[in-house]
C-alpha cells in the first residue's frame, strides 16, 4: 500500500474523472486537473468565485464548477483549455447544478425549487421543468442515462415525471399515492422506480418505467419510517433502512419482504465475526523515548497504533441514546450500500455510530461487525471487488474484505484525519480527504503482488 504526497483542496471538492485518468480538485476559486498516475498538473483553471460544487461530465471532457452564492456555473473543457462556458442563473438563484448523463446538458435547480433549467452546450435551447419538489432525492437519472425521474408537487399532490434525456421529452407523468414524497430512485437496470414517502409514513411504492404501480410496501404505521434506500447492483434486492433500526430487503419478483436485518445492541449471532478496533497508545519507557523518539519524531508521534481484534461473542455494542424530543433523531439506518457483486450489504445504524455492519446477502445473515473507536464518517465499496473502505475521522484507513480486516495509518507528516474517501473506478486507488488535504492511497494490484512474490 503506497500513499501519495498531500495536496490541498477546499470544500471536499476532489473528483476523479469517470474514465479514471484525471483528478480534479478545487482550491478556493482554482480548479486543478492532474494526471492520476503521475499526479502532474495538467490544467489549471480559474473560476470567478470559490467553487461550491464540481462535477465531471460522463465522457470526462468537461468539468462543471458551480458557485451557488453567485448563481453561476462555469464549464471547462479538458481538450480545449481555452474553451469556456458560463451560465448565469441571475436573480432566480441556484441551489443545485448537475450534468445530464450525456454530458452536454446541465440541469440547474433554482432557489425555492421554482424550476429546473436545462442548459444545452450543443445548442442555444433552454428548457424549463416546473414544479420540482424539494425533497431528499427529487431527481434521479437511470443508470444507462436514458431517463430521468423527477418528483413534482402540484395541487398539493405528489407526481413523478419521467423524461427522456435525449430530447427532454416527457415520457410519463403520474400521480403517486404518497403523503409527502421523499425521494425517487431508479433500479440499476432502469426498469423500476422506487418511490418512498416521508419519514412520517413508512411506504415504498414501486413503479414500472411505463408508470404502472408494481407494488406497495409498508412495514408498519405511526412510527418514523424510512431513512434510506439502496438498490443492489443486480436490481434484485431493494434494501430499506428505517428508523426502527432495521433493514428490510425486498425481492424483485414479488416485491415482498425477503428478510429483516436487525441491529441488536448485543451481537450473539454465532456466525458473525465482530472486529473491534483496539487502540494502543504509544507508551514507551524512558529508554524507549531516547532512541525511538528521535527516529519516529517525523510524524507519527501523536498517532496511536490500532489493530483489530476478534471479540468472542456475545459482544455488547455501544449505543448512543438519541434525543427523542428533537427532530431527525439520530437513530435508524442512515446509510446502506451493496457491494458491486451484490453479495454483501454494509449498513450503519445512527445510534451505533462507531459500527458498520456487513451482511451476507447470499446466506441472508450477519457476516461481520466492525466496531471502531470513533464514529464512522464514511464507507464505500470497491467498485470492482467486494471490499469495503471506511474512515472514522482518525488518521487511519480501514478496509474490510471477506478475508479479514485491516487498519492502516496514513503515513503523512502531521495528522491526517480522514473525513471522507472515494474509490478510484479501477479499484486500485483510494482518495482520502481530510478537511483541507487529500492524499491518494494506491492498493497493491494482483499483478504487483505477483511480482513481489516472484522477486
Amino acid at each position, binding site marked *: 500500500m503506497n500513499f501519495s504526497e498531500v495536496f490541498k483542496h477546499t470544500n471536499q471538492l476532489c473528483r476523479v474523472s469517470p474514465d479514471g485518468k484525471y483528478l480534479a480538485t478545487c482550491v478556493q476559486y482554482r480548479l486543478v486537473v492532474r494526471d492520476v498516475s503521475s499526479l502532474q498538473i495538467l490544467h489549471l483553471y480559474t473560476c470567478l468565485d470559490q467553487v461550491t460544487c464540481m462535477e465531471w461530465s460522463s465522457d470526462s*471532457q468537461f468539468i462543471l464548477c458551480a458557485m451557488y452564492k453567485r448563481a453561476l456555473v462555469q464549464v471547462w473543457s479538458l481538450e480545449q483549455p481555452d474553451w469556456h462556458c*458560463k451560465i448565469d442563473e441571475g436573480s432566480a438563484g441556484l441551489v443545485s447544478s448537475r450534468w445530464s448523463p450525456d454530458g452536454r446538458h446541465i440541469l440547474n435547480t433554482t432557489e425555492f425549487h421554482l424550476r429546473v433549467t436545462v442548459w444545452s452546450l*450543443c445548442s442555444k435551447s433552454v428548457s424549463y421543468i416546473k414544479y420540482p419538489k424539494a425533497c431528499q432525492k427529487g431527481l434521479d437519472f437511470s443508470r444507462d442515462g436514458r431517463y430521468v425521474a423527477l418528483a413534482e*408537487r402540484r395541487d*398539493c399532490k405528489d407526481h413523478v415525471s419521467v423524461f427522456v434525456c435525449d430530447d427532454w421529452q416527457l*415520457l410519463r407523468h403520474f400521480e403517486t399515492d404518497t403523503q409527502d414524497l421523499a425521494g425517487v430512485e431508479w433500479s440499476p437496470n*432502469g426498469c423500476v422506480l422506487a418511490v418512498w414517502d416521508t419519514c412520517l409514513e413508512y411506504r415504498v411504492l414501486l413503479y414500472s418505467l411505463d408508470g404502472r404501480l408494481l407494488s406497495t410496501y409498508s412495514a408498519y404505521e405511526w412510527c418514523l419510517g424510512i431513512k434510506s434506500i439502496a438498490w443492489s447492483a443486480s436490481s434484485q434486492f431493494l434494501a430499506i433502512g428505517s428508523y426502527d433500526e432495521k433493514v428490510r430487503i425486498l425481492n424483485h419478483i414479488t416485491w415482498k419482504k425477503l428478510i429483516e436485518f436487525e441491529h441488536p445492541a448485543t451481537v450473539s449471532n454465532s456466525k458473525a465475526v465482530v472486529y473491534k478496533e483496539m487502540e494502543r497508545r504509544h507508551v514507551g519507557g524512558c529508554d524507549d523515548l531516547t532512541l525511538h523518539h528521535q527516529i519516529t519524531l517525523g510524524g507519527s508521534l501523536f498517532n496511536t497504533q490500532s489493530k483489530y481484534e476478534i471479540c468472542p461473542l456475545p459482544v455488547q455494542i455501544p449505543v448512543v441514546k438519541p434525543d427523542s424530543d428533537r427532530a431527525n433523531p439520530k437513530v435508524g439506518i442512515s446509510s446502506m450500500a451493496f457491494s458491486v457483486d451484490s453479495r454483501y450489504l454494509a449498513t450503519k445504524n445512527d445510534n451505533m455510530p462507531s459500527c458498520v455492519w456487513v451482511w451476507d446477502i447470499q446466506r441472508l445473515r450477519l457476516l461481520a461487525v466492525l466496531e471502531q473507536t470513533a464514529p464512522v464518517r464514511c464507507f464505500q465499496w470497491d467498485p470492482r471487488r467486494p471490499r469495503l473502505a471506511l474512515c472514522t475521522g482518525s488518521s487511519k484507513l480501514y478496509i474490510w474484505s471477506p478475508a479479514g480486516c485491516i487498519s492502516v495509518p496514513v503515513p503523512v507528516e502531521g495528522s491526517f484525519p480522514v473525513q471522507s474517501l472515494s474509490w478510484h473506478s479501477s479499484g486500485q486507488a483510494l482518495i482520502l480527504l481530510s478537511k483541507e488535504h487529500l492524499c491518494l492511497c494506491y492498493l497493491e494490484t494482483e499483478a504487483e503482488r505477483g511480482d513481489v512474490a516472484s522477486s
Partner: protein
Amino acid sequence: MAAVLLVAPGSRKASNLQANLRSADRRELVASHGPRLTKYVPGSGRWARFRRFHRRHVSDTSGVHRDLCAEKPFIATCVALALRSPADSQLFSHPADTGDRWTPAMAESSLESSNMSCNSSRLMYPSRNHTHSSMPLSKQSYSVLSAFCSEGNIAQCISYINQEMSSLGFPALCNELDSGGDLKAVSVLNNMYELLQLHRRSLRALEELETEQLKSASHLEHLKLCNSRLKEQLEQSRRESTGLCERERQLQMKVKSLQNCLKNEKEEVQKLQNIISSRASQYNHDMKRKEREFSKLKERLNQLLIDKKDKRLAIEVLNYVGRSDGKRSLWKTGKTEARNEGEMYQTLLNDYESRQKELLVENAELKKVLQQMKKEMVSILSPRKHSQKGETIDDSLDLPGSENEEEVCDSSRETLELSCEHAREQLTNSIRQQWRRLKNHMEKLDNQASLVQNGSLGDNEVISRKSHEETVEKLKLEIQQCKDFIQTQQQLWQQQLSCPCDDETAALLNDCYMLEEKERLKEEWRLFDEQKKNFEKERRNFTEAAIRLGHERKAFEEDRAMWLKHQFLNMTPFLDRNKSQSALKSPEASEVTVAPESQYHNAFSTPKAAPAKIPSTADLYRTLRLLPDHGSPRSQPKNGNWQDSDVILSRDVSAKSGFLGAADCSIYSLVGTESSPN
C-alpha cells in the same frame, strides 16, 4: 312442684319447730337449710332408685338434659330439674312403678305427719328422710338442748320426742297408751342408733356433696375462664373482622377511584385522540392552504422572473460543442415521441425477457433437481420394497402407485421442456408420494432405533453382546480374584520367609522345596513312563507282526509244499480237465460274493481252502496256453493273495516288491494295500 313437695315436710317441721322453739336464729337455720334438705333427700336407698329411674327417664326424654346429666353431678341436675318447670317436675310425680309409690307416699307423709299416723313401711323412708334432714338442726341446737329438757319436763319431752319420732316414722319410744310411761330403752337405743347412722351417713353425703360442690365450683370456674377467654377471642376476631371489613371497604373505594381514574383517562385519551385528529386535519388543511399560497407565490415569482427579462440569465459559450454521440439533435415531433415510447417498451420488454429467461433457467434447474431427487428416492425405496413386498400393507398399497410413477417419470421428462400443467402436477404428486414413503421409512427406522436404544427390542445381536459383556465382566472379576489370591499367597510366602524360623520350619520349608522338585521329577517320571509304554506297545506290535509274518510264512511254506505235492500228483492233464471245468464255474460263482468279506477274517485260512481248487485253474490256464492276463487280474484278488501274488510275482517284479514292502511295514498298511485294488 317436686321441690315443693320435698320441702313441704321440712317447712312443716320448721313450723313445728317454730311453734315449739320460737327461736329466730333456728328459723333462719331452717331457712338456710331448706334447700339443703331437698338435697339430702336422695341420700337414701330410695334415692338410688330414683336416680336409676331418672337416668332411664332422661335417656328417654329430650336430649336437652342429656348432656347436663352426663356432665354434671346428678344432684345439681335433679335440683335444676326440680326447679325448672312443671313439665320437668312431673317426672317426680308421675312416673312408673317407683314414682307411683313414692308420690302418694309423699302426700301421705305430708298429710299424716300432722296426724301422727302410724308407721308404715311405705312411709318409712320419706319420714326418715325428714328426721334425717332435721339432724343438723338438732346438732346445731345442742346448746339449747340443756334448756329443752329439764328435770321438770321430762315427761313432756319424752312425749314430744315420741311424737316427733313417730311422726318421723320411727317406732315409738314409749307406750302410747300410758302417756307418762317409761321409755322403752331398746327402741330408744335403736332409734338412737338409727339416728346416729343416719347422721353419719348424712355427714358422709355432705362431705361428698361438698367435694362435689368444690369440684363443680372449680369446674364452673374453669368454664367461666374458658368462657371469658372465648369471649375475648370472639371480641378479638370481631375486631379483626371489622378491621378487615374496613380494609376491604377502603380497597373497594380505591378500586372504584382507580376505575374512575381509568375511565377519566380513557376519556382523556379519547379526547386527545380527537384533538390530535382534529389538529391533524387542521394542520393538513393549513398545509394545503400554505402550499397553495406557496405555489401561487412560486408561480408569481416565476412570472416575474420571466417578465423581468433578466439580463443576467444567460449562457455564454465560446462555441457550441457537438453531441457526445456525434449526432445532430432532432426536432421534437410526434415521431420522436413514438420512438421514445417504442424504446421504452423495448427496454421493458428486454428486461422482462431476460427475467423470463432467468426464471426459465432456474425452473429447469429446479426441475432437474426434482427429477434427480425423485429418481434417487425411487432407487432408494424400490429395493427395500422388493425385499419386503409382503411385509407391510402400506407398501403393498403403494405399489401400484409406484408403477404409475415410473410412467409419470418418463412422461414428465418428455414434457419437461413444455412444463405442461398436467405433467407438473403429476410430478409433484409423485414426489410427494415418494417423500411420504421415505418419511414413513425414516420414522420406522427412527422407531426401531429408539427401540434398540430402549433395549426393549429382542435383538439377538444385542443380547449376545450384552451376555458377552457380562461374561467378560465375570471373567475379569475372576481374573482379579485370582490375582488377589496369588498376591496374598505371595505375601504369605514372603512373611513366611521373612519371619525368623527354627530348624524344624526350615526343614519343612526345605521339604517344601524338595516337594516341588519331587513333583517335577514325578512329572518327568510320568512322561518317561508314558514313553516307555509307547515303546512297549510298538515293540509288541512289532513282535506280533513278526509272529504273524512267521505264521504266514509257515502257511505259505505249507501251501507251497501242498501245491508242489498237488502238482506232482496231477501231472496228468486228462484227469484234471473235467474237474477243473466244474471248478471253474463253481468257485467263481460262490467266491465273487463271499471272498471279499472272508479275506479279512480268515486271511490265513482261505489260502488253505483255496489251493485245492485254484491252483488247478491256474494250472489249467497254463496248460491250455491261454493268456493269463485276461482272467488273472480279475480273479486274483478275489480268490486269494499269496499264490496269486506269486503268479504276479513271477511276472511283475515291481508289484511283488511293493507287496513285500507292505508286508514288512505293518499289518495295517498291509490291509490298506490289500483293500486298495478292490
